[in-house]
Each structure stands twice: as C-alpha cells, then as structure tokens.
C-alpha cells in the first residue's frame, strides 16, 4: 500500500509547528500504524533527518502511551482500539493520512506528536485513590462485593489514561476520565468513605487545569479505545451533586 502522510512537526513547545508531507510505499496491510511510522523514521534517519517523535510503549493497547489524531479521529478509523492496535488494512482506498498530536490546552506539545499529559496524573493525585497505606488491612474476602458491582467497577477501571476522550471533545473536557475513576471507587465499599470529598477535589482540579465542561456530545465515548461509557459522567455528576447537597464534607 502507498500513502501520502501529512505529519505535524514542531521542534518544541515554543516553536511554531507545521505539516510536513512524506511519501511512503509498499506498506503491508498487516503492518500496524506505528510500525508504518517506524518504517518512515528509518528512512528519515537514512536521509540524515530527524525522525518523527511519537509516544508509544507497550504496543498492545494497554499502557495508554500512544495517541495520535489520525484523519480527524483520535486513534484513527478503527473502533475500540488504540493507535498501536490500528492496522494499515483499515486504510484500504485511502491515499492521504493526516497525523496530528492530541490538541487540548492542558496537553502542550513537547515535540512533533508528543504531548505532555501529566495533567491526568495531577487529577488522580487529588483523591483518585483509597487512602490506605501498606499493611494492616482486613482479609480480601472480609467484605463481599456483589458481582455486578465489581464487574461495573472493572468496566470503569479499564480506562488506560490515553487522553483520547479529551482530544475528541470540542471542549477538551476530562469528564469521562475523571468520571471513570470516581465511578469505579464509588461503586466499591472500599471507596465509599472518601467518595464525597474525592469527587469535589477531582472536579475542582479538572477545572483548575483548564479542562472544559461536558456539553453532551459524547465524542469521548465514541472514541474511547476501551469503550468507557458516558454513564460514568452521569455517575460523577450525581456523586458531585450529592456531595455538595448532602455531604457534610465540602472542600
């Protein structure tokens, strides 16, 4: 398969970026998208130029490190996959592929297609956990958890923190990301004691970091590689309202 690639190049955060065009030939349909970029990069090194920087690591769709905006969609044209799981066979009949970094104010470009996503960690640090320390805790079976609740919590916990939901959103809202963590922990007895304070702190941090609000377009849900449901946002809103109205703990 042959393609024309239009790739965003930007030296560093302050530099002015631009699209560069590259031609690439004889790509196997079984090749993954990132392997196609590897081939491009090897050819760039051959020509003594600087290869295209892009984040990637596990290449099996679980670490959340990769994330490219491909032909206008986060993680490209396939459903329920990360960029690393996307294969070139999905580009049958396509000539030009445009590749951009995640574009959102809280995700500044570091170089080319690499963006800074530490804002995600900062939101988790505001209480996206149960405040236990190591040791001194009861047996794992001491508190039974209904299977359906554990399963639902697992669905929310599947989030890989890639940021596609934010890149997809016209408001750069992080509500699906935050909602998934809030929901996971609110569903489990272990997360209950801190539920009210957690949701308030995480939402406050989300606002502070410059993420927008949800206006119910649900592009986040459509583009999430792990198919995290928008009901996580509803759950978060509910938890937030309850926390503000009912809870004695406010921030």
């Amino acid at each position: 398969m042959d393609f024309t690639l239009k790739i965003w190049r930007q030296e560093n955060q302050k530099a002015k970026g631009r699209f560069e065009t590259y031609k690439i030939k004889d790509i196997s349909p079984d090749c993954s998208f990132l392997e196609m970029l590897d081939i491009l990069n090897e050819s760039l090194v051959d020509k003594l130029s600087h290869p295209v920087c892009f984040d990637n690591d596990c290449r099996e769709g679980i670490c959340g490190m990769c994330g490219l905006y491909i032909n206008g969609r986060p993680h490209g044209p396939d459903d329920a996959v990360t960029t690393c799981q996307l294969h070139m066979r999905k580009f049958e009949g396509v000539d030009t592929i445009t590749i951009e970094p995640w574009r959102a104010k809280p995700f500044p470009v570091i170089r080319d297609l690499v963006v800074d996503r530490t804002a995600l960690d900062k939101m988790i640090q505001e209480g996206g956990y149960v405040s236990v320390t190591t040791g001194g805790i009861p047996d794992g079976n001491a508190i039974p958890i209904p299977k359906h609740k554990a399963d639902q919590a697992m669905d929310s916990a599947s989030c890989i923190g890639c940021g596609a939901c934010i890149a997809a959103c016209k408001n750069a809202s992080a509500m699906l990301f935050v909602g998934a963590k809030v929901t996971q922990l609110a569903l489990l007895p272990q997360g209950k004691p801190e539920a009210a304070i957690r949701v308030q702190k995480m939402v406050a941090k989300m606002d502070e970091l410059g993420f927008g609000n949800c206006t119910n377009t649900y592009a986040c849900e459509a583009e999430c590689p792990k198919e995290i449901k928008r009901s996580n946002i509803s759950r978060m809103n509910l938890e937030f309202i309850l926390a503000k109205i009912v809870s004695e703990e406010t921030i």
Partner: protein
Amino acid sequence: MSTLDSKIPEGQLSEKWTKYKSSQKLVNPANKRKLDVIVVGTGLAGSSAAASLGALGFNVKIFCISDSPRRAHSIAAQGGINAAKNYQNDGDSVERLFNDTIKGGDYRAREANVYRLAEVANSIIDQGVAQGIPFARDYAGLLDNRSFGGSQVSRTFYAKGQTGQQLLLGAYSALSKEIKAGTVEMYERKEMMDLVVIDGQARGIITRDLQTGELERWSSHAVVMATGGYGNVYFLSTNAMECNGSAAVQCYHKGAMFANPCFVQIHPTCIPVKGDYQSKLTLMSESLRNDGRIWVPKNIEDSKAIREGKLNPTSIKEEDRDYYLERRYPAFGNLVPRDIASRAAKERCDAGYGVGAGFAVYLDFKTAIERLGRDKIQERYGNLFQMYEKIVDVDPYENPMMIYPAVHYTMGGLWVDYDLQTTIPGLFATGEANFSDHGANRLGASALMQGLADGYFILPYTMQNFLADKIHQPRVSIENKEFEQAEKDVRTKLESIMAIKGEKTVDTLQRELGHIMWEYVGMGRNAEKLTKAIPMLAALRKEFWSNVRVTGDMTSMNPELAKALRLADHIELSQVMAKDALQREESCGGHYREEYVTDEGEARRDDEKFMFVGVWEYKGEGQEPIMHKEELNYEFINVQQRNYK
C-alpha cells in the same frame, strides 16, 4: 569486592522471615525524614516500594522513563496473580505455593527467598482489595480464582484479562497518594544514565531528561533498581518498546554482580511473527490454557495443506488432531509450565507439523465454547479475543488461534541477598530486575506476585534495616567529585555515540542483535551455537561503536539517541548471557541445552555440577568478566526431577 553472602537468617524455613522482622533494626520517625531513597522505575516493584517507603516517612524520589507511572509494562500482564489463600478449599497452602514455585523454577532458586514470597503473597491480595482493585468475584461476592500452569490448584486471582493493569493502577494510586502528601517526589521522562558510588556505597544516580537532553545529578542514602528485565535484547519480545536492561548494566559496571543472565523465559502463547516490519510480539495470556486446547494436525500432509492454504483447520476431524500436551503430559495437560509448553511447540514445528507460516500451533476454544457457551468465554477472555482479532484479522470464536513461543521474561538479573541488596551496599533490586525467586523458569501469575511482594512487604523492612545504620551519615552534595566524574563519563559516552555518524540505524543493529540472540542463544541452545554467538556479538559491538547512525542532537527530545544508548548496553549484556549459557552444561527450566536431554526429550538437569547461581562480575572495559558461584543448598525441599506427567 564483597563475597557472595546471601545473608539467609538461621532457623526453620517457616520462621526465618518472622524472626528477621522481629530482630531487624528500625529507624524512628524523626530520623526517617533525614534519610533519602531513590527508586528507579515505576512498575509494580518500583511504585509499590516508593509508596510504602514514602508512607513510612522516608524521603523518596522516583524516576520514570515515560510520562506517567501507569505506562510501566507491568500494566500489560494479563492473566493473574498467585496467592495461597485456599479460598477454593482445593488443598492449597503456603508450603504448596512455595513447592510449586521452586519446582517450577527447576530447583535453581533460593529456598528462603521463595518461601518468604509464598508467605507474603496473601497480603498482596488483601492490599489490592483495600485499594479498590475490582478483582473478579463470584455470585456470593467473594473473590474468584482460576488455574495457571505448573499447579494443580486454583490460586490465581484476576481482573478480567487485565490483572497487571489493575494491580499497577492500585500501586499507582498508592503512589499518587504519597506524591500528594509530599513524601514522594515524582520525576517523569527521565532515564537513569549511571549509578554514583561513593566510598563503596550507592549514593545517587545521574539521569538524562528525555525532553531536553539535560543531565542531572541526584543524591541519596540508598538506591532501588526496579527497572524490569532485559528481554528486549532479542529485539522481538513481548516486552514494551521502552523496556531495557540498560540501568542494570550501569550497576553491573559499577560493581553490582549479575546473576544467571542466561535464564530467559520463552512464553508459549504469543501471536506468531508476521513480517520484517514487526516491532514487537503480543502475548496471549496463559490463562487461555485453562479453556483452550493446544494442537497441531496428526498427519503431516494436513499441516502442509494448511500452510499452503488448501485446508481449513476447522475441517480437521477430532481424531486427526494431535493434542500433544495432553498426550505427553496427561497429569497437567495444557497447563504444564511455560518452558515445557514452549519446547513442545517448537518440537512439533521443527518436525514439520507447524501451521500458519510453519512456526505456529493452534490454541482452540471449540470444546470450551461447546461446553460453556460463547458468553462465558467472552466474559473470561473477551479483551484477549478482541486483541487477537485486531492484530491477526481472524475471529478466534470461529477459528482456532495461532500461537508460537516468544521471549517474555528474564529470570536472571542483579544478584541480591535475602535483604534484596546487591553486591554494592545501598543498592537494592526488586521485581524482574533481580534474580532471586524464579530460578530457571517463572510460573505464570508469579511476576506480579514477586514485584508487589518485594515492593510492599519486603523492601520496606530490609531497607530500613540498612538505613538504620545511616542515620548519622550526612547527605552527600551533588557537587562531590564522584558525581562530577559520573556525569562527565555519561557526557563523553553520549558525545562519542553522536560523533560516529555511521551507516546503520539503531533499529538495524538492534534487529541484528535480536537475530543472533534468537538463533544462537534462544530456545534451543548448544555449545556449537553458543561458541559461534560469542565472536558474533563481539563483532556487532565493534560495528555499533564504529558504524551506528544517530541523527538529531543531544539537547532536545531524541528517541534515536535513547535507543542507541540502550542498545550499547544490550549488546554487552548479550555477551554475558552467551557466556553464562555456555558454561551451564545442563538443561534446566528455560535454559535448554540440546546436548543435555533425557531419552524422552525432556530437559536433563545436572544437580551435581550446576546447582548454583552463576554470578558475573565486571572486570573493566576490554576484560573478560569473571563468574562466581552461589551454591544452592536445599535444606527443606526434596529435590526431584520435574515431572508433569
């Protein structure tokens, strides 16, 4: 250089750890604040250690190669984590988990360490539940289990096919809590470049910022290496792209000895290689062997027809299928340990029965789907089936999966004593980065167990024991001459790589290394191949230092330079691996020497001559490393020939 003292406490096996804990030295809270610890690596072993040490009150700095701790490759572990809870009432116990682990490792692991691992494993499950990890549960709301290779009980806890993800996110949440509390400082996108040793003690590290190229110095009272394994020396492996053994090699250069480098695990169920462009291999969890049956055609003509695309596997009759694991190992069937399952697949493919391109066997769910229904299979393995379909473009509910062995895990690593301390005082190694618990073969679902056992429940004790003697030791300045020298050495190394401006890309050389290692130091080794590999690796090393091409500069984000640095260390490590594989004239676990087999084709151990840990000491650039031996004494376990029939 210190001698190899494993510092195993006296007494009965079951009492050693309890005694250790009750008699070890402690540090009072006011003094903890004066002591600094550096943790390198944010996977299970690193995050859990940093969070636990931070919570105790030490000043912890943790360094991450990626943008977030959650990217570490622990996240990709699929199947589960072992613990001897005996919730299933199927006869499990700490002793049995200990026995299975030692036997699974083919009697090449240290008894006392493994017993301690089995002992603390239960607490990991409790810890995980308390952190809000959504482990799989049954309809009564209690924790569910599945079976894994090398055991006859169900002791594996899991969270769908994403157990590693959930456990890592648990450790990451504990770490996030400590970062917020200010006890742990997090540094992302910084890679360790060198270890700083002052007066024989590890006192800090040099890092390189992967965004700016800046070299930085960090001092501490102790350093923890939680940097994972070196499976990427094979180029194609199930490891993530960033996984590397470079930091471990830096420690080896500074005097930390390297144990059993040749012990590499080849995982039996990976998606086969497709083309030259391939950058990595994807694992299909061992848990699939609970319900999937492994087979190749019984008739060689059928295999040939399948390879030529003339025959579909689903049309091969039941009686014409060779379920070779069930045939050869009736007691354990498809759940034999990984090394055995891998070799059996290679044996069938080498004999001409392979499918796909010749290097693949089937993993079939037909019987399981008939027995349990598609929904149940989807619930258990849904994400794995989806992953397979996305990569291979074949629906595994309808057609059998194709799998083949691939490099997965390294049992070898930095030599550590019972305290998890290396041969450099103050330098500790945890998780896959050390060597101590898995012998010559790791059992499935034991990597997560070991990483977290080390980080949550072992290191916080043993490191405190070390630091108790350091409360009067003042902080060392990073302006110190050892720091200056270390940074200078790193800079010189970087400059010399940039100055080569050769013809070959890093990836090309990396592929060449992978090829040598897979063909000559891979699944089936022999003296002839290994003797050939050693000069080939030396030549490759020479070629690297004279002909590598790295473009870009040293002062901005430059992944090519980062890869080149790791490759230089990987070539050197490969040389030690080949030497270690050559000296070990026996077959044990993942180390299979074709000259040393039984009449039935099984691995033949030589306990008389090789019941030791091969521990390699660096002797300087251009010098041959020296091997020391740590004899393994089995006081409590009855050493047997492994038998899974």
